[in-house]
């Protein structure tokens, strides 16, 4: 299912959480939704999942408005950071309710995931630790087999080994039942390799949407003698600049940079990693990034 966001604006009182945002999310890809706190990620996900309405503009999922639309919502599963389920239920009840809601629900997958995360069906959701609650959310999201599965920071309280298990299971599910996954995360270094495309929001606006692989090639980190670095980066889009002991380091972004070319000038050159790029692009205020 294809998602289109068309000029969506979402206001909470005076504050604009999203500003005239437009983008297309293709089916069966894994998307990373990134941005600083308050960039609008959660609002955007809730809009896609039809949990809230935009102030203006519209969201279309295969041409239909998801809000209050059973046909779309049964193929849409949004797992939030927390409070995904009522606190007076047992795990088995939560699973039962989910299985009734999602037509492609896989009980087999749910059972296996519970086991992987050491959760018992008889447990009360009230007594779950933060990590266990996240694990249950992940279980529901993956077992829903919803065509569009959205995870908003799904791993609060999960330790590193459980997170890596989540990445494994996500890839396994994706391989067996291709579908659209959208993940928002602050742990960019850990998950960026899972993404096919990256969407970066800044202050409620779309800063960029790119293939994760292109993102690397469109960046370069060069350092060397100040004059040489300055000469090299002249006219290029510098998103970060630091100097130390007469040597300068700059991060460039926006076109395909050739590492060898920079090295032949005697500069040290490498690709920026996605986490650093995100940080600097989010901080960078030099207008829109042209890619």
């Amino acid at each position, binding site marked *: 299912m294809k998602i289109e966001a068309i000029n969506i604006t979402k206001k909470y009182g005076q504050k604009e959480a999203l500003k005239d945002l437009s983008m297309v999310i293709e089916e069966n890809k894994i998307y990373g939704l990134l941005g600083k706190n308050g960039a609008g990620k959660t609002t955007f996900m809730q809009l896609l999942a039809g949990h809230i309405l935009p102030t203006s503009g519209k969201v279309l999922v295969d041409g239909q408005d998801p809000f209050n639309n059973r046909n779309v919502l049964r193929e849409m599963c949004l797992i939030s950071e927390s409070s995904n389920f009522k606190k007076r239920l047992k795990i088995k009840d939560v699973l039962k309710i989910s299985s009734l809601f999602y037509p492609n629900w896989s009980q087999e997958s749910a059972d296996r995931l519970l086991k992987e995360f050491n959760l018992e069906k008889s447990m009360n959701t009230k007594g779950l630790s933060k990590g266990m609650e996240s694990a249950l959310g992940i279980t529901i999201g993956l077992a829903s087999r919803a065509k569009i599965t959205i995870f908003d920071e799904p791993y609060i309280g999960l330790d590193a080994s459980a997170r890596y298990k989540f*990445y494994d299971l996500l*890839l396994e599910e994706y*391989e067996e039942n291709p579908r659209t996954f959208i993940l928002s995360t602050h742990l960019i270094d850990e998950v960026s390799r899972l993404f096919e495309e990256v969407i970066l929001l800044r202050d409620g606006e779309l800063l960029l949407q790119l293939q994760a*692989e292109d993102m*690397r090639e469109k960046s370069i980190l060069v350092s060397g003698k100040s004059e040489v670095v300055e000469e090299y980066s002249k006219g290029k889009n510098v998103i970060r600049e630091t100097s130390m002991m007469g040597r300068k380091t700059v991060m460039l972004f926006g076109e395909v940079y050739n590492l*060898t070319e920079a090295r032949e000038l*005697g500069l040290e050159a*490498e690709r920026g990693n996605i986490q650093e790029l995100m940080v600097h692009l989010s901080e960078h205020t030099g207008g829109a990034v042209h890619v």
Partner: protein
Amino acid sequence: MDSSFKDDKPIFQQIADKIESSILDGSIQEGDRVPSTNEFAKFYQINPATAAKGINQLVDQEIVFKRRGIGMFVAEGARDIILTKRKNDFFNDYIVPLKNEAEKLGLTAKELRDLIQRED
């Protein structure tokens, strides 16, 4: 196979490099099956499309070929193709940085030559 990636190259390129290295050192032989896109994706926890891009690059260079419905295999002559390619890259990848560093240290061409010939 080494299970980590570096930041200086795209991941798909590194996947292709890893396969090539395994062919070069004989860990996989011509005619052997290469792991599938999904096997790579799971092993390295990367997006399957990224793994596919790496493998397809080798298909384009005729190092690996697809057998529909069965999998990917190392092509005959793959090792020679890789050797030729790596020899071509050797200058840029190794000699250029070596010369740059030598220049920074003020080593003369002769000193550099002597160093290359020195026993380890």
